[in-house]
């Protein structure tokens, strides 16, 4: 049987076919047709099946990653959405946290983006729960009906319902929701208690509004996709890839589209996690660098961290998601000198059209891609397999105008300086991620992918003191592969909030049993075998009074014979000290949440080892810049001419379709048995 992974990118859709038995893969890359996304995907699936001669009924699983939700809200092309909330509180969505976002404190001429629901579409109902979840005023159906009339007049396409304290009791939201669903068939009705029953009204309302804004778009997309698949006689089950790095049935995603918003960068991280497991690289920092941004994620023991909230344009989204940190640094990042001689790299970025100066399409701004070309890291005649000619003289002119001229500096020296600053900014992003999580990055490997990762990787690694960089095979297909082989992942939580000394272990055990039962039902519905299931139990703890918890997971031994709460508390103190420089033994500790993550492991087919072959030859050599060495002759290889076991001394550059791997002098490059490139860097003095 076969599995399919689909990754919809900006320009192309990648469809990857994996043979479950042998691990052999087939690929189709199809150009996106604007306005016909579902059709493009079906076309891609048919193409990969035809090309590989595989019959549709041989496909047991289709995993689908999509950025449709994210793009719809970023481009403000979501549905016309209304909000229903308590009387007196319709402006919670607009006022938000009340404080200005940091970057606007001094920038008084700039606005924060308006909410997705304008004020005339924010409606109120005079009902209310108190802070213990008791009903103070009940829902008047007559009032709801009056709102429904307005919704009809306004031709609203989706409705978000978010009431105060609905995370304690969902009944009022349900009453309103049922009335709306009966009166407005076909209009998605999204309740905050179904989306994310967690405390704090602004983030919950914001998340619900985001979900409602994309619900109709997701629904019509899935309708078209499912009917397209059925027309093409492809009956294998379809699963949607979520921000938490796992897949779920389309029905779950239709109900809770908020699980999709940050799924874009998650595919590559899951791909990296699989790489880690297959190849035995356990602790990795992944960098995925594209045209405008850099995504950073930390994998410990092959497992990516998770987090629960991010923001899109200052509006929070609360949903379990892989902990991917994004900064504005990519190939298109603009470099300039300001009026007083300070260098700026990003966060502004050249648009993809006309692109960097060296594309020769009229772009005049100096970008990191131009810098990489000037430094000899890119081959002007062999960029993207020769499909995009690059013009070094245009890059040079932009460099002269933007930086070297104003600084009265040798252009090469300027380019080298900019490159170093860029590497440092990317390293800062990694430091931010690791320090925040109490991790010392030294001792981690750097997994570099995306077009820019392997170009900048050695500089970032050097800045952080990392010893080894891994450039995986098929980096362009990483994400599709991750999605094809993603596990079923479900997160469950009970909010308990009580001092740990008052916790009744029997009760805790009972709560866990209940979660395990829910997990059992979900995994069974997905056909996951008993012995392919793993359950990870953890507790969120904090000092009584704090608002931020530390998640403590101790392995199954700590819960086997009833919870060993002493051990959890001891581990909490230890982690608090590591993260925050101190712990307070004797201070009361509070148990906040009991969490269960249920994973249905999908068997990972063996990755076919590389066919051993004769080592090819360097394609040519070019001058490339290295710190302390200047421009030196550097052999250049095409990646396909390497073979497993190959070992080359730096300086050397490996070109491939999607990127170039830069190996500095003193470093050693090897190709492992699976075709990954390993760059071992010299120990810093």
């Amino acid at each position, binding site marked *: 049987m076969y599995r399919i992974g689909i990754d919809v990118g900006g320009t192309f859709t990648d469809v990857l076919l994996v043979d479950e038995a042998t691990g052999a893969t087939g690929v189709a890359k199809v150009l996106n047709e604007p306005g016909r996304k579902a059709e493009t995907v079906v076309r891609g699936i048919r193409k990969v099946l035809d090309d590989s001669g595989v019959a549709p009924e041989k496909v047991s699983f289709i995993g689908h990653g999509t950025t449709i939700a994210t793009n719809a809200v970023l481009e403000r092309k979501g549905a016309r959405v209304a909000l229903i909330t308590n009387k007196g509180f319709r402006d919670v969505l607009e006022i938000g946290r009340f404080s200005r976002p940091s970057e606007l404190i*001094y920038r008084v001429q700039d606005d924060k983006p308006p909410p997705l629901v304008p004020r005339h579409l924010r409606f109120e109902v005079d009902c209310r729960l108190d802070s213990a979840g008791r009903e103070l005023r009940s829902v008047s159906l007559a009032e709801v009906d009056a709102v429904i009339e307005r919704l009809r007049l306004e031709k609203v396409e989706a409705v978000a319902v978010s009431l105060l304290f609905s995370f304690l009791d969902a009944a009022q939201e349900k009453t309103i929701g049922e009335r709306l669903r009966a009166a407005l068939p076909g209009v998605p009705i999204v309740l905050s208690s179904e989306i994310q029953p967690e405390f704090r009204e602004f983030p919950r309302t914001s998340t619900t509004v985001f979900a409602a804004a994309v619900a109709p778009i997701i629904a019509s997309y899935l309708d078209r996709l499912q009917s397209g698949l059925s027309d093409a006689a492809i009956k294998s089950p379809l699963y949607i890839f979520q921000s938490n790095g796992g897949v779920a049935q389309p029905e779950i995603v239709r109900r809770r589209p908020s699980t999709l918003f940050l799924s874009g960068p998650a595919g590559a991280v899951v791909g990296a996690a699989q790489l880690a497991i297959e190849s035995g690289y356990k602790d990795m920092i992944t960098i995925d660098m594209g045209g405008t941004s850099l995504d950073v994620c930390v994998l410990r023991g092959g497992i990516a961290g998770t987090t629960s909230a991010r923001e899109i344009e200052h509006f929070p989204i609360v949903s379990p998601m892989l902990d991917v940190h994004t900064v504005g640094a990519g190939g298109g990042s603009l470099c300039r000198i300001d009026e007083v001689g300070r260098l700026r790299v990003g966060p502004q970025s050249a648009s993809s059209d006309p692109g960097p100066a060296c594309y020769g399409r009229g772009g005049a701004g100096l970008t990191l891609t131009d810098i990489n070309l000037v430094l000899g890291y890119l081959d002007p005649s062999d960029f993207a397999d020769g499909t995009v000619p690059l013009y070094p003289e245009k890059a040079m002119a932009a460099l002269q105008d933007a930086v070297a001229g104003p600084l009265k500096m040798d252009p090469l020296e300027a380019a080298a300086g900019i490159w170093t600053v860029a590497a440092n900014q990317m390293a800062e992003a990694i430091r931010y991620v690791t320090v925040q999580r109490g991790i010392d990055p030294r001792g981690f490997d750097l997994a570099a992918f995306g077009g820019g990762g392997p170009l900048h990787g050695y500089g970032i690694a050097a800045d952080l003191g990392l010893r080894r960089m891994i450039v995986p095979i098929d980096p362009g297909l990483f994400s599709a592969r991750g999605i094809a082989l993603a596990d079923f992942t479900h997160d469950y939580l009970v909010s308990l909030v009580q001092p740990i000394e008052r916790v009744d272990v029997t009760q805790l055990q009972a709560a866990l049993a209940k979660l395990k039962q829910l997990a059992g039902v979900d995994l069974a519905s997905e056909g996951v075998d008993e012995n392919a299931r793993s359950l990870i139990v953890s507790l969120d703890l904090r000092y009584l009074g704090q608002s931020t918890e530390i998640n403590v997971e101790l392995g199954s031994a700590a819960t086997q014979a009833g919870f060993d709460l002493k051990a959890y508390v001891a581990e909490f103190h230890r982690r608090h000290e590591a993260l925050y420089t101190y712990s307070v033994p004797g201070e009361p500790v509070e148990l906040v949440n009991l969490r269960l993550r249920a994973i249905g492991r999908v068997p990972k087919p063996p990755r076919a080892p590389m066919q051993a072959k004769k080592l090819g030859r360097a394609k040519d050599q070019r001058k490339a810049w290295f710190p302390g060495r200047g421009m030196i002759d550097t052999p250049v290889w095409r990646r396909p001419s390497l073979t497993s076991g190959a070992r080359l001394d730096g300086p050397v550059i490996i070109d491939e379709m999607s990127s170039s791997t830069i190996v500095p002098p003193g470093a050693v490059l090897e190709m492992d048995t699976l075709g990954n490139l390993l760059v071992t860097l010299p120990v810093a003095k």
Partner: protein
Amino acid sequence: MAVDPFTLAVIQNALISVASEMKLLTMRTAYTQLWKEQGDLSCCVMDAEGQIVAQDPSGFPIHVTTMPYQLQSLIDGVGRDCIEPGDVLMTNDPFLGGTHLPDVLIARPLFWDGTLYGYLCNRGHWADIGGMGPGSYSPATRELLQEGLVIPPCKLFVRDQIQTPLVNLIVRNVRNSVVAHGDMRAQYASCFAGERRFREIIDRYGLAIVTEAMREILTRSETMTRARIAEFRDGEYHARDCLDGDGLRDEPQWIDAKVTVKGSDVTVDLTGSSDQSTGGMNCSRASAISGVQYALKAITDPENPPNAGSYRPVTVLTRSGSLCDARAPGSIVGFGEVAYRVLDTVMRALADAAPKNVLASGSGSTGTVAVGGRDTRPQARRPYFMSLELSSGAYGARATKDGINAIRYGAGNAGHIPVEASEMENPIRYERIEILPDTGGAGQFRGGNGFCRVFTVLVDTAEICLCADRHKSQPQGVFGGLPGTSARYVLNPGTPQERVLSSKTPYIRLPEGTVVWLQSAGGGGYGDPKKRDPELIKRDLRDGYVTETLAKKHYQV
């Protein structure tokens, strides 16, 4: 030794990260809502002379701009020669260049091979510092000692050992000692974490380069700010604005700003302002300077990170014994209100010098309302409950845009407590949080609308105090824009028990069931209302930001 532009960029980024991480760590480990939810604290990296080199990007202008003044006094107070490796210093004395007593400054001197190379500073607004009522905010105080506990310059750590008796003395003198202790830990721990990062930077580049980079960071910012000031129209400008009462009497207190723009220098002369008031509506010279510097930074170089260099081209003249340069032992609790009015006045004085850059006056107050009392409910987690309601926020209109509705404006930036967080911790219930139509001043561009926070008190032990402003005067418009409406503070509105409060109300008891209505002033308008785009008028009517009545009156709709 000259530092190259690339190393300079790298070191500046790294130092900002140090300050940023310090704030993040404090918010994550603190116990008070004021920090963990509202973010009311700021962190800075200072050089060996105590000048700001980097501040956390979310730092409040009023915290950070005053910090070097208080740090100097702290160093002098402890004795410059007595500062040693392993020290952590502390003070909250507002007359030593500070703000008000609840803002506690913790500073870590940094040493490298025995040489002092800088300080890490964390200034946080404590939930309580003792004094006349919960939250320590009574405006009807005549002297500092009534406001709470004064911590003179002292060492909290000696040779990296915490001074436990001192800690005990401090936390015993504030309400909810456990909270104060937890917050103090969060504050000093951030300095240790920051130091770890700072040392890595020096390890890498060497102390000489880092020191040189710190100097250069300031020089470049100064040059940038000067270049922007040079674009302003030279001249002498003047504006006056007032505070409604001094805390004890309801008479206007004037801020008078004479602003001279000449080449790349700005001088702001506040010496014509009213004498120091007998109540709490006064501020330190440092706080007045922070109001001036915020106005200038916002209209000169708002894009780049601020530091001591940004502030050099601006000279501020004050008169000791005036309300913006108060003398001990007077009261200073209303420092925020005075600093906000200094900001409004200076901004308006500069309207003709930089018409495209300025804003009309914003809501013009911190809107501080402290609600608290003994928490005698069975589910109480602490002996006292306390909530700091921030009831003022709206931008003035701008040259090309309306003012923003219901948002924090000016030199502070604390946020709201989420309704659900507050109700779970405090015996109060919110009735509405709503943007109020017609409160922003009309204009070609409209002032931001104010908002209301309305809640019912659920116990009989609550006290309330107001330390705010603008309940009589209005935020002014510019270039023909109209003023916004005044703030309103009312108990039990629309009932026989209705009682309108002054924006300066000392602690009063609230019977169970009292409804409290807190309403922000609106921002001033910019330009002639007759020139307003009809599309914007239509949008405002549809969204209820402006009513038909007002539209008819000002926009001839």
